[in-house]
C-alpha cells in the first residue's frame, strides 16, 4: 500500500502529513511548500530535457572541445580525436578513461534515461528493482561528467603564454557541458516512484 493509495502525503519541508487530492497544484498549509504526490510533469520535463541533451550531444562530439595554439600552429581537437590521439600514442589507459568519462558515460546515461522513460510510460512491471538501481547510478554519476569541462576551463585559464601556447575552449566544450547539465536536470526531474506505480500487486 502506498501513501498515494490513501491520498496522503507528507510535506518535504515541515514533514506535515496531509490529505492530497489526486490531481492539481497544492501547497502545505503550515509552511507553504508546494505539495504533490509525484514530481509534477516528471515525464514531460524529463523527456524535454533528455531530447535537448541528445541534440546537444551531436555538436559536443563533432566540434572541437579545445584549440591549442602553440607557436602559431593551432590544433583543434574533438573529444574523439583526443581519444584517438591518446590511443595512437600508447596512452590507452588514459584514453580509455577519457573515452568512458566523456563519450560512453553521457551516452549510457541518456540511453538509461530513455529506457526508464519508455518503460514507465509503457507502465511496465518488469525489473522494477533493477530500474530503480539504474536510476540511482545515473543520478550519482551525473555530476562527475563535468570533469572534462573543468579540465578545459582550467587549461584555458592557466595556459595563456601568448605566442608560445594558448588554449581556447571550443564550441564542443559548451555543447558538452550542456549535455552534462541537461542530463543531470533530466535525471533530477525523473521521479523514480513512477517506476513503482501502475502495479496491481505490490510484490517488490
Amino acid at each position, binding site marked *: 500500500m502506498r501513501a498515494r493509495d490513501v491520498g496522503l502525503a507528507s510535506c518535504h519541508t515541515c514533514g506535515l502529513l496531509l490529505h492530497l487530492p489526486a490531481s492539481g497544484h*497544492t501547497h502545505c498549509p503550515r509552511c507553504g511548500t*508546494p505539495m504533490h504526490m509525484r514530481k509534477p510533469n516528471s515525464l514531460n520535463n524529463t523527456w*524535454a*530535457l533528455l531530447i535537448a541533451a541528445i541534440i546537444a550531444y551531436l555538436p559536443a562530439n563533432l*566540434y572541437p572541445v579545445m584549440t591549442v595554439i602553440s607557436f602559431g600552429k593551432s590544433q583543434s581537437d574533438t573529444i574523439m580525436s583526443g581519444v584517438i590521439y591518446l590511443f595512437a600514442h600508447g596512452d590507452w589507459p588514459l584514453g580509455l578513461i577519457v573515452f568512458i568519462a566523456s563519450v560512453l558515460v553521457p551516452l549510457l546515461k541518456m540511453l538509461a534515461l530513455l529506457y526508464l522513460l519508455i518503460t514507465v510510460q509503457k507502465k511496465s512491471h518488469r525489473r522494477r528493482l533493477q530500474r530503480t538501481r539504474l536510476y540511482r547510478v545515473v543520478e550519482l554519476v551525473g555530476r562527475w561528467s563535468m570533469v572534462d569541462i573543468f579540465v578545459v576551463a582550467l587549461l584555458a585559464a592557466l595556459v595563456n603564454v601568448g605566442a608560445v601556447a594558448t588554449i581556447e575552449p571550443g564550441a564542443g566544450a559548451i555543447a558538452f557541458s550542456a549535455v552534462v547539465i*541537461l542530463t543531470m536536470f533530466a535525471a533530477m526531474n525523473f521521479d523514480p516512484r513512477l517506476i513503482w506505480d501502475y502495479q496491481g500487486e505490490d510484490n517488490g
Partner: protein
Amino acid sequence: MAEPNPPGDLDSVPDAIVDEKNKGFPVVWLLPLVALLVGGWLFYKTESEKGPEITIRFRTAEGIEQGKTQVKFRDVTVGTVNKVDFTEDLKAVQLTVTMLAGTEGYLTEKSRFWVVKPRIGAGGISGLGTLFSGAYIEFEPSTEGKAAKSYIGLERPPIVTIDKEGTKFRLRADTLGSISIGAPVYFRQFDIGEITDFKLADDYSYVDIGVFVQAPYDKYVHTGTYFWNVGGITMSMGASGAKLEMESLVALLSGGVAFETLPEFLDTPLATENTVFELFDNRAKALERPITEIVTFALKFDGTVRGLNIGAPVEYRGLRIGTVKSIELGADPHNPGIDIPVVLIDIEPQRAQAYRDVDQLEPQEDATGEFEKDPLSRIAVLVKRGLRARLQTGSLITGQLFVEMDYFPDAEPAALVRSGQYPEIPTLPNSLEGIIASVNNILDRVEKADLHGTLENLNALMVSTTRLADTLEKDMPELSAELLVTLKSAHSAMATLEASTSADGEIGSELQSALKEISAAARSLRVMAEYLERHPEALIKGKNTP
C-alpha cells in the same frame, strides 16, 4: 502490508490547499528547441565559414599535415589542408584545401600556391619562422583569368610576387654559365633583381633566362642596355696574362648577371616587359662595340705556332683588331708537298674605323676603286706598303702568343695572296725566331774562327811554363844549403853579442867594477860633506885628528 499506525487519527490529517490550476505552456519544452536552435546555428556558422574546396598538387607533402597545415596570404590564414592524398598515378600529392568564405573571387587560374618552409639558398635563408610553426602554404591571390578549383603548387617560392614591382626581361645566352634561380642582378653592383627562371630554347640553340629587375631600377634598362654574366670566378689566361674576376661572393656561389647602359645608348627607348637581350660572357665583351663585319685572312708561318691559341688577339700596334679563328695545317707555297701551320684570323675592320678616318687613306693607291668599302683591297694596299703579320710573345710567363700586324717597310716585298679560300697576308718570322737565328749566326762564326792556331799558341805557352818550373826544381837543393849556412853564422853572431852583454861577460864585469868605484867615490864625498857640516873649521884647520 505492515503499515504502522499513525500517532493520531488519519481523519484528523489536514487537507493540502489546492492552488489555482496554472495550465500554461510547458516551458521545459523550450529547452530542446533552444538546443536545436543553438546546434543549428553552430552548424550553419561553421558551414558558412567554409569557402570553396580546392585541390593543390605538390611533388611531395613534406611538412604538410592533414587538418593542420594552413593556407596563408600575408600571414593571415585563409584555408586549411583537409586531406592529403595521392594522385591516381601516385606521381604527386594532392591536397584538398578548404578555403575560407570570401576567397572565391581570388581563386583563379592565375592564383599560385607554394609551401613555405625553411630554405637555405645562395640568396639567403628564408622561412625560418616555420621552424617552430611548421610549414604552411602561401597563397597568392589573383583576380585575373577564370575561376579554378585545382592547382599545381609551385615547388619553390616564386621570385616575383604580386607585392614586388618591377619589370621582367628575357636574356639569351649560349650557355647557362653558373646562373641559378634567385641569383642576383646587379646594376653598378647594386643588387636590384633576381633570376626568375631559365630554360633551353625549343630548338636547344640558346638558353633563355628570365630576369626580374625591381622598380625603380627597371627604368635604367634601355633597349641598348648590355647584360653580362658575373657568375663565379672568371679566370682567363691569355696574352695579357692571368686575370681573375669576381663580382661578389653571392654571385660566386649562385651566379648572377649585371647590366649597364653605355652613355651613347642612353637615348634608346626604355625596354618594355619581356624584351630580349643578349647575355654576354663578361663585361669586356658586353661593352665592345657591336661588330658586324668580319673578314677572314690566312697567315702561313714557317716556324712553330706553339703557344698560339684560338681566340688569341690580333693586334695592330697594341690595339686589338681581330681574333685568331683557327689553326690548321696547309700547303707551303714554297715547298710543295710540305704542310706548314696556317692560321686563320678574323679581322674586324670596323674596329679600325673607330680609330682612323677612312678619308685619310689614299684612294688613288687602290687598284679596284673600292677602297673605302672593301676592306680586302684596303689590306692589299697596306700589304704593298709593308703590312706584315708575325707572332709575338704576349707573356713570357705563360708563353702565349698573339698575332701582331705592323708595317715593316724593309721587309721583302710581298703581296696579298688572293688565290686561296682566304686572302693571305705575308708573314715575318716571330721575334723569338729572330733571336734564335742570330744565336745560330754567332755559333756559325765561332765555328769558322781560327781555333786551331789559338790552341797551338796556348800549347807553346804551356811548354815554356813547364820548362821554367823544371829549372827551378833543379836549383833548389843548392840554394837551400847556402841559405842554411848563412842562417847559422847569423845565429852565432847573435849568441856572441848576447854573451858579451850579460853580467858575467867581459864588458859586463868591467862595467860593474866601474860602477862600484863611482859609488865608493860618492860615499866618500858624502862623508866629507857631513864632516864639513859639523866641523866647518876643518876647511881651515884640517881634520882634527885626536
